[in-house]
């Protein structure tokens, strides 16, 4: 369980740092907003938001670093530690290492469910897919978005659906093909003739 704790904190460390970077970029971008003579200039609000993102990201980083060195002591001082805090005071069936900050990753909540036993309301987090698979799915999606207008809705959609379903269930290619073509045609007809949303005709048009 100690291992998953550090994994979760490493995740927070990365998340927090990313938020700080976004905040800095966002804050710098406010410099190019033209200033006016109003009390609240157009740049005031964006600047507040940028600073807030930097601060909150930094807090997250600090939390993860503090919790890593002294997991048990750091917990009560941190704001949102429902589970950790609860398990500490109750001190009964649960160990302090169930979760880091109340938002569990897949592995931890499974651990948590077993050790929390009957007292807990624990919903197992959904399983995490492999990053490579996620990247592939996103890549296909972006290809689809890119070709939708030039190639047209019918062809690109049928191809996209065929691609996705065939990666998932290659053995059922006939069903996949029928689904891809029928779905594309039905949606096209429904939107163009039913809802008057004109989808790109592309090379067929």
């Amino acid at each position, binding site marked *: 369980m100690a291992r998953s704790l550090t994994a979760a904190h490493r995740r927070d460390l990365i*998340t927090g740092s990313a938020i700080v970077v976004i905040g800095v970029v*966002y804050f710098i971008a406010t410099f190019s907003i033209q200033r006016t003579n109003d009390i609240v200039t157009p740049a005031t609000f*964006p600047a507040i938001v940028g600073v807030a993102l930097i601060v909150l990201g930094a807090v997250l980083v600090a939390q993860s670093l503090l919790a890593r060195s002294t997991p048990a002591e750091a917990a009560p001082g941190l704001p*949102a530690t429902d589970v950790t805090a609860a398990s500490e005071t109750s001190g009964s069936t649960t160990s302090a290492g169930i979760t880091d900050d109340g938002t569990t990753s897949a592995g931890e909540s499974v651990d948590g469910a077993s050790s*929390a036993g009957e007292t807990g*309301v*624990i919903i197992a987090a959904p399983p995490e897919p492999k990053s490579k698979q996620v990247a592939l799915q996103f890549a296909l*999606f972006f290809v689809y978005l890119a070709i939708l207008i030039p190639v047209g809705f019918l062809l690109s959609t049928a191809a996209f659906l065929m691609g*996705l*379903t065939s990666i998932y269930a290659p053995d059922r290619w006939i069903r996949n093909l029928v689904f891809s073509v029928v779905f594309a045609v039905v949606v096209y007809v429904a939107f163009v003739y039913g809802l008057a949303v004109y989808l790109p005709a592309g090379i067929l048009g």
Partner: protein
Amino acid sequence: MDTLVDLGNGFATALQPASLAFALLGVLLGTVVGVLPGIGPISAIAILIPVSFGMEPMHGLILLCGIYYGSMYGGSITATLIKTPGEVSSAVTAIEGYEMARKGRAKTALATAAIGSFLAGTLAIIGLTFLSPLLVQLATVFGATEYFLLMATALLLASTMSSGSRVKALISVFIGLAVGLIGLDFQTGLPRQTFGISLLSDGIDFTIFAMALFAIPEAIRNLALGRGGKEEIQRFGDEKWMTKEDWKRSSGPWARGSVLGFIIGVLPGVGPSLASFMSYIMEKRISKRKDEFGHGAIEGVAGPEAANNAGVGGAMVPLFSLGIPGSATTALLLFVFTMYGLQPGPLIFREESGLIWAIIASMYIGNIALIVLNLPLVGVFVKLLKMPKELLFSAILVLVTIGAYAIEFSLFGLMLLGLFGVFGYLMEKGGIPLAPSILALVLVPLLEDNFRRMLQISGGSFLPLLTRPVSLSIIILMLLGIIAPIVVRWWIRRRQILMDFTVV
């Protein structure tokens, strides 16, 4: 009395064939989409908003309200039979209802959920009917200061009351604000945060952002997971719906859940999900059969489901009467109002009173339709659970793409959809909840506008926040709102009840 007259007129409109048809269609469509595993009310509305683009405002709004509570009910079917909550609010049902289903009592679990939802939903709409006009009168003394405060409260509560890390929920709020500020400043017309990209000066479309966050990560995740680990769908036999004993054991939780859910729902920034958890804890605490909880106690389904649906009605109160959404889902509805050029709040009750009362009346009808349609049709909905995942989620990707295309008609809009999809996926991976950012995005223009007006009137001083009586009362309530969850946490801790759930 005026209220009853208005409501009567509302019914006259809502009972016209077209309105009635849209209410029924919404409820049915909502249930169907809500049943689909992994799709909760937020995703359902986000995906279906583009459908309402070409509609008359009243019909579009009636349809989407129907979709909202239809999908809540659909979600409880999914939670009960395959333990996949579409949203946090049905997470408790995924425990208690699923356990009941495993014991062959799926029908009873669904019946107590449906009847509880109907009763609680109707009570909440009655509450909405009579509380909204009162709030509207109160709101006439509200100025920029009060509105700014209320919206800030909504955002703050949305982050303190959510589960998990409050820092992360706040990050989500500020991400929503950051995205919302991109584009031309509406007061001076100056471009802001566009990073030199002129296409960004129109701002980020709300629907694109919502669809990207609430449909794409879930779809991609499921597609990338691939086959294997098939969910077990619980059998749905021909046992009795509800025995006398079940009725007896359900009625208390229904009543308590309704009241609790409505009150929590009315608070700005607190959606129905907290209501269902609070109800579960309460039922467990007062139950004589504590050991049954976690093993299929009917009270653990009846109470939370009632609270959940009462919360929906409660959340409509601040939305309709003040124009301030209490949750991500009502934020979507607020967006739909503004899309039609309507601004919920005191004005809408004066100027568009026919419209608003017709919507409220349609909710009564929709609630009845839910129970009339859904219990007999539940066998049909269950078949939807068997829909192959790859077909479902690839179809959803196509539907959101059409939605984004219908908004921008450009490659740029499509790319924004994809990029925010990636961003949403990374947010989820980092444990940052998505819902608060939607709420923040929809509130940005109002929040900033009132912030500016407040300071312009006072000449740059924040003092009016404390000197105006109404504003001061809100501040006091706001402080209570921050203290209350701490007390609740302490109380939960004492009860040794663990709560932990992940936003799915």
